C-alpha cells in the first residue's frame, strides 16, 4: 500500500471522508493515514501542489482525531510547500494555524518557532506581515515567561526594521529587548540593546531623541555601571564637540564591536549628516543661558 500511486491513495482517503448516502460518518483515522502517505509520495515526486493539498487534508484529519500535535506538524509541512509555490498569504495562514494547534497542545516554544519560521520565509516578500509574525511569536513567549528564547526573535525583527530603514521602530524594538533582558537578568544583553538603540537614533540623525534615550537608560543601574554607558557618554561628548575623528575612533572601539553586526554596520557609518548643526544648537543653548544672566 505504501508504494501504490499517491493519487490513488488520495482518492481512497477522499472516499472515506466524503459523506454520502451509504456513508453516514467519515472514517478519519484511516483517511488520515492515506492522506499522509499520499503527501509523502507527492513530495518525493516533487509535485508540490498536490503534496501541499495532501498535507492540508492530513492535518485536518489529525485534528478530527484529536491529535493537534500531528496536525500542527502537517500544517507546517504544508506551509513550507506553499513557500516553494510562492503562495505567500497561504504561507502566513498555514504557519499561524500550526502555531494555534501547538498552543492547543500547550507547547508555546514550538508555536513561537512556527511563527518565526513563517516570518523568516516572508522577510523578503512581505516584510510587514513578517514583522507581525515576529511580534506575535515574541508575545507568545513572553506570556509564557520564556523571554530568554525571544532574544533571537528580537534580533531578527530589529535587523528587518533596519533593512526597511524604519529606524524609530528598530530603536523601539531594541528597547523592548532591553526590557525582556531585564526580566531574565541578562545584564550584558540589556546594556548592548540600549547601546544599540542609542546608535540607531544617532544614525537616524535624531540627536535629541538619542539624548533622551540615553537619559532614560542611565536611570537603570545596570546600564549606568556598564562599559556600554561609558562608550555612549564618550560618543555624545564627541558629537557635541563635532569631532568626526573621535566619533570614528569610538565606532571602532570594543563595546560597539561586540554588538550585532547590523548595528556595527550602522555605527561604522556614523556620523551621518551635519555635525555643525548640532554644535550650533549646543552653543545656542549656552548663549541663551548667558543672555539670561546678563539681564539679571
Amino acid at each position, binding site marked *: 500500500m505504501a508504494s501504490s500511486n499517491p493519487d490513488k491513495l488520495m482518492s481512497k482517503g477522499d472516499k472515506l471522508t466524503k459523506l454520502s448516502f451509504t456513508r453516514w460518518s467519515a472514517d478519519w483515522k484511516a483517511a488520515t493515514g492515506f492522506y499522509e502517505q499520499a503527501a509523502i509520495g507527492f513530495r518525493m515526486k516533487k509535485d508540490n501542489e498536490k503534496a501541499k493539498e495532501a498535507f492540508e487534508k492530513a492535518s485536518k484529519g489529525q485534528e478530527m482525531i484529536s491529535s493537534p500535535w500531528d496536525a500542527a506538524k502537517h500544517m507546517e509541512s504544508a506551509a513550507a510547500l506553499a513557500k516553494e509555490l510562492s503562495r505567500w498569504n497561504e504561507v502566513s495562514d498555514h504557519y499561524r494555524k500550526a502555531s494555534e494547534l501547538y498552543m492547543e497542545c500547550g507547547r508555546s516554544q514550538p508555536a513561537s518557532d512556527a511563527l518565526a519560521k513563517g516570518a523568516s520565509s516572508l522577510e523578503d516578500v512581505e516584510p510587514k506581515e513578517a514583522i507581525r509574525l515576529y511580534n506575535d511569536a515574541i508575545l507568545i513567549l513572553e506570556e509564557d515567561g520564556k523571554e*530568554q528564547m525571544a532574544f533571537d526573535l528580537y534580533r531578527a525583527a530589529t535587523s528587518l526594521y533596519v533593512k526597511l530603514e524604519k529606524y524609530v521602530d528598530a530603536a523601539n524594538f531594541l528597547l523592548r529587548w532591553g526590557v525582556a533582558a531585564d526580566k531574565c537578568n541578562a545584564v*550584558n544583553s540589556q546594556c548592548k540593546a540600549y547601546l544599540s538603540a542609542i546608535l540607531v537614533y544617532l544614525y537616524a540623525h535624531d540627536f535629541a531623541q538619542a539624548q533622551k534615550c540615553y537619559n532614560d537608560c542611565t536611570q537603570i543601574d545596570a546600564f549606568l555601571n556598564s562599559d556600554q554607558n561609558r562608550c555612549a557618554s564618550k560618543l555624545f561628548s564627541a558629537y557635541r564637540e563635532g569631532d568626526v575623528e573621535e566619533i570614528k*575612533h569610538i565606532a571602532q572601539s570594543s563595546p560597539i564591536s561586540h554588538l550585532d553586526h547590523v548595528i556595527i554596520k550602522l555605527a561604522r557609518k556614523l556620523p551621518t549628516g551635519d555635525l555643525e548643526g548640532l554644535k550650533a544648537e549646543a552653543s545656542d543653548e549656552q548663549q541663551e543661558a548667558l543672555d539670561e544672566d546678563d539681564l539679571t
Partner: protein
Amino acid sequence: MSVIDILTRVDAICKKYDKYDVEKQRGDGSNIAGDDAFARLYSSVEADIEAALQKAELATQEKNRAAAVAMNAEIRRSKARLLEEVPKLQRLALKKVKGLSKEELAARNDLVIALPERIQSIPDGTSNGTKQTGGWTASASRPEIRFDTTPDGKFDSEYFQQTEESNKFKQEFEMRKMNQASICFRFVNLADQGLDAIAEGLDTLKNMAHDMNEELDRQVPLIDEIDTKVDRANADLKNTNVRLKDTVNQLRSSRNFCIDIILLCIILGIAAYLYKGLVLIYLLGSFVLIALDFG
C-alpha cells in the same frame, strides 16, 4: 553556541587577510596611547620626521643626481605637510587630558614649539646654510643635532666654530632634554601598545564570557525539562521490559510443553504403525526434536 565559533573563525580569516587591509596598516601608527589624541598625533609626526631624515641621508648618499633630486623634492613635500600638522598639535597640546600633570602639559607645549625648527632642519638639498644661520640666531633650541645621524656633519662643526660658544652649551642641554623626552615617549608608547593589545583581547574574552553566561542560563531550564522527561521515559521502559520478559517466559513454558507432548505421541504412533523395524531410529529422532524444542 556557534557565536563563539563564528567569532574565532572570523578573527582567523581577518588575520589572514590583514596584509591587504591598507587602512589597518596606516592605522597601526595610531594605536599608541589610544585615548590621548595628542600623543597619537605627536608620535605620528615624530615617525614622519624620522622617515624624512632617513630619506635625507639616503639622498646625500645617492650617486644618481636625478634620484637625489626626486628624493629631495619628496622630503620638501613631507616637510610642508608636517608643518601643517603643527598648529593642530599645538591646539591638542593645550587641551587638558585626564591624568596629565601640569609639568607634562608644559613639556608638551615646549615639544610642539620645538617641532617647526626640527621639521625645517630636515635637509632637503636646498641652500641650507642661509636658512640655518637665520634660524640659529633667532631660535633658542637646536633640534637638528641628532644622536645617530648628522646628515650635514660638516656644516655643524663649521657653524659651531663661528657662532658664540656660550650658546652652544645651552642649546645642547635643551636638545638633550628634548631627546630624552622623546625616548621616554617612545618607551611609554611601546608599553602602551602592548597593553592596548592585551586590553583588546581581554575585552573580547569578557564579552564572550558574558554571552556564554547568558546562554547557559537559557539552557538550564531546558535541561531540567529534559531531565524529568527522560526519567519518566526510563521508568516506563523498565516497566515495559519487565512485563515483556514475563510474557515471553510464560509463552515459552506452556506452549513448548504441549507441543512437545503432542509431537512425541504422533511421531511414536506413526513410527510404530508404519515401520515396525525402524522404531528405535524414530524414537531417537523424536528425542532430538524434544531437545531442539527445549533449546
